[in-house]
């Protein structure tokens, strides 16, 4: 008997659709596999397009991850104040070099007047010519910084043993030092460094504390440094014309912005910046650094997107071309399918699916090579490896889109072939 026109319940419809999806997917795999060389050449275009996006985005992500982890030292509640900007990609601007140094006196004044801050640490790097204990020499690359007590919290330095610098150490210009974990182990291999003496640039210091290990990052050791009172080092190792840095910690996240504004105001007043004039110092927070980095990399990202888009459009046209050939070649197959009950929609789905599968093959290889390539580049730049899942997904999404856009016309052509003519086609 003639059955009435099928009406599907929602579940049945879902099942039929997913079965159709699966079937057309299998058919597409079959079709792609039966023309290996042709498929490979066609998906090369998509591969290149996706590769170029992913390789650059992976390298960028690696760079970003590295910078973020370095900025993590600052933490969300800490900001730094210094004379020069943290990163400049353009020529070092004369206006920065003409700025007056931030003096120790200014720093101490800020510390006194910045009432909103939990602490203001003052900091200055000193050159190291030699550093040794009676047991060993400090490893190469050791650094020496002058600090105040508040710096420890701001830098997120945690004490392993002993004590940190005190106000008395700073006020009294005492010859004491706190060692990074790794440095302490090298200088005193046998036992605790506590109470021992080391020599820095010919002057003796007592070790009063050792910090917890922070772990080494690729390319540098974070624990290879010694800390002395900023005042002690200031007279001995610095030229008079050297700028100090401020590490300011706000009480909580909510008061962060207010604290920044207060410090800015105090410092402007101390440095006699006229109202309305530009700051003659830089305030660096995690946010502002990230913003700066993002705006610097924006141009690169836009460029890559543009190039990739062109590559993908070219690839799409290639796909459309090959799909049109495929439709002509398979006219009789289309006729057979139509004769035994395929609707136009079925034919359409099948050919779009084929284009999408073709694109996805290229895309998947492109993503894979892109991630590998990006990480190889990252490796040479001494950056940690990353897998940018979001970009990988985005890349594959774009591939599907290219397949759908450029597969639709050939699929439409295939679906609208006359079944009688197609069956007769030789």
């Amino acid at each position, binding site marked *: 008997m003639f059955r009435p026109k099928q009406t599907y319940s929602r579940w049945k419809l879902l099942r039929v659709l997913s079965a159709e999806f699966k079937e057309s997917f299998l058919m597409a795999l*079959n079709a792609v596999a039966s023309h290996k060389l042709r498929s490979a050449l066609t998906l090369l275009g998509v591969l290149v397009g996706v590769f170029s996006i992913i390789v650059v985005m992976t390298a960028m992500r690696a760079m970003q991850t590295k910078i973020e982890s370095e900025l993590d030292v600052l933490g969300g509640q800490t900001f730094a104040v210094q004379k020069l900007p943290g990163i400049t990609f353009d020529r070092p601007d004369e206006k920065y070099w003409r700025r007056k140094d931030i003096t120790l006196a200014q720093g101490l004044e800020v510390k006194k007047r910045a009432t909103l801050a939990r602490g203001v640490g003052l900091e200055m790097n000193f050159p190291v010519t030699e550093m040794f204990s009676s047991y060993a020499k400090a490893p190469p690359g050791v650094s020496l910084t002058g600090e105040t007590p508040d710096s420890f919290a701001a830098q997120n330095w945690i004490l392993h043993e002993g004590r940190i610098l005190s106000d008395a150490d700073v006020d009294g210009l005492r010859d004491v030092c706190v060692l990074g974990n790794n440095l302490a182990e090298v200088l005193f291999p046998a036992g605790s460094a506590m109470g021992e003496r080391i020599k820095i640039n010919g002057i003796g210091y007592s070790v009063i504390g050792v910090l917890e290990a922070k772990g080494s990052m690729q390319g540098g050791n974070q624990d290879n440094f010694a800390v002395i009172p900023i005042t002690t080092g200031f007279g001995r190792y610095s030229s008079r014309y050297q700028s100090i840095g401020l590490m300011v910690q706000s009480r909580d996240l909510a008061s962060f912005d207010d604290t920044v504004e207060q410090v800015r105001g105090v410092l402007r007043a101390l440095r006699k910046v006229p109202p309305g004039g530009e700051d003659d110092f830089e305030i660096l927070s995690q946010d502002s650094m990230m913003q700066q980095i993002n705006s610097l990399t924006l141009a690169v990202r836009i460029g890559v997107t543009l190039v990739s888009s062109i590559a993908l459009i070219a690839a799409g046209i290639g796909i459309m071309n090959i799909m049109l050939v495929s439709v002509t070649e398979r006219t009789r*197959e289309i006729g057979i399918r139509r004769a035994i009950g395929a609707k136009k929609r079925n034919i359409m789905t099948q050919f779009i699916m084929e284009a999408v599968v073709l694109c996805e093959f290229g895309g998947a290889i492109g993503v894979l090579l892109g991630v590998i390539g990006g990480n190889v580049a990252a490796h040479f730049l001494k950056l940690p490896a990353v897998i940018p899942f979001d970009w990988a997904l985005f890349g594959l999404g774009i591939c599907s889109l290219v397949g759908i856009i450029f597969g639709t016309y050939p699929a439409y052509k295939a679906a609208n072939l006359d079944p*009688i003519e197609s069956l007769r086609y030789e």
Partner: protein
Amino acid sequence: MSLICLKNLSRRYQMGEETIHALRDVSLEIERGEYVAIMGPSGSGKSTLMNLLGCLDTPTSGTYELNGTNVSEMDDNELAEVRNREIGFVFQTFNLLPRSNALRNVELPLIYSGMTFDERRRVALEALTAVGLADRVTHKPNELSGGQRQRVAIARALVNTPSIILADEPTGNLDSKTGDEIMTLFEDLSRKGNTVFVVTHEEEVALHARRIIRIRDGLIASDEAVKH
């Protein structure tokens, strides 16, 4: 009620300025279970009639009732469904998908009717067994002989238990011995209650049927029962 009822069926083609009357006012009734041969020289309109019967084409005028449903005014999607469920095609050139094995070829109509994978496999295997190819299911068409290919095609035509089987010159590409085997298969199908149409221009083939309809110039020239 008849299985097939054609009333004043006409099909005209426009070829530039000229109008070609491929079929003129054909009226015909076919009962369930009949075994009909359609004969006629090329250009007579027999292909047009077959396309109309197979719901591949729609008439310019007149009505075609299949199983009590008027299919002459259906849209493309509805026709596809009718073809899927009601009609099994067998072609002169077999028209199998070359890259799919026998089983996949027979399954194809079931894919479009939305049958589940397991059921599909079972039904397709049954159909292949019915035409005597149970041991050839994983062979591709180019690994099969002409007669075997046509059997696969017949299995594909049968797999959806259609109301009519339409065979267009089914022995045209076969040697006479294999052709006879195929015609015997059609006789079996007819005996089991299937309605079978065979379009042919060979008298010998037509004589297997129980009713011969001759077409000439778009008209039914004769319609007579065959005495066996």
